[in-house]
């Protein structure tokens, strides 16, 4: 029971950590660039991550010999709280920025209505044909 609980807890924590992680972004970029080799990319990324995990748990077990696990728990708790607060603050900042950008004045074409716009070149001039019916590219 404890073993299953440890497994599930670790799984959930790591999934939450990895969601917006730079490691994930790197894997995403490689998979986008090599769609014909996506399983090779997946295999390479999985091997790298499993190697990292073996290193991590070795160092972790060695660390537990030096530092009592209770202290490690407290440090982990503080760290997690800080990470959560930091993440929440950045999310709030993003939401505020997105709200401000959404309320910026825009004309019918979606371009920002300001002195820099050249009056519009026509309905399909700026976008290639294959992009016309898809959502605007970020």
């Amino acid at each position, binding site marked *: 029971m404890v073993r299953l609980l440890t*497994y599930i807890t670790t799984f959930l924590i790591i999934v939450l950590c990895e969601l917006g992680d730079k490691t994930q972004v790197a894997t995403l970029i490689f998979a986008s660039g090599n769609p014909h080799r996506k399983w090779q990319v997946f295999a390479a990324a999985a091997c790298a991550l499993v190697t990292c995990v073996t290193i991590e748990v070795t160092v972790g077990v060695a660390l537990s010999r030096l530092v009592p696990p209770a202290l*490690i728990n407290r440090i*982990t708790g503080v760290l997690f709280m800080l990470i959560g607060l930091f993440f929440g603050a950045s999310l709030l900042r993003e939401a505020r920025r997105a709200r401000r950008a959404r309320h910026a004045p825009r004309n019918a074409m979606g371009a920002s209505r300001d002195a820099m716009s050249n009056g519009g070149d026509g309905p399909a001039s700026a976008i290639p044909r294959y992009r016309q019916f898809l959502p605007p590219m970020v």
Partner: protein
Amino acid sequence: MAKVFGVVFLSEMGDKTQVTTLLLAGAKPLYVLYIALGSASALVVTSLVEVSIGSLLISRYLKPQTIKLASCLAFIVLGLLLVTGVIGRIAVAV
């Protein structure tokens, strides 16, 4: 594919994911196997999700040139942010 291995390995080195697993393993040294299995399976699942998103969504709706340009920029920007310490911080002084 050694490129993929190297990049993922290096980006995971000082990552908060790594420190999390490290601390978890240190806090429960008796259940190290289950921590290792849980962490490895979580990482594999998330990389599976990422590979699917990257190969099915992004490579379908963007030109290869655009993808390459975006990758270049993304790596440069990520590198800058990491070097200046904006992202990848393990502990934060709020």
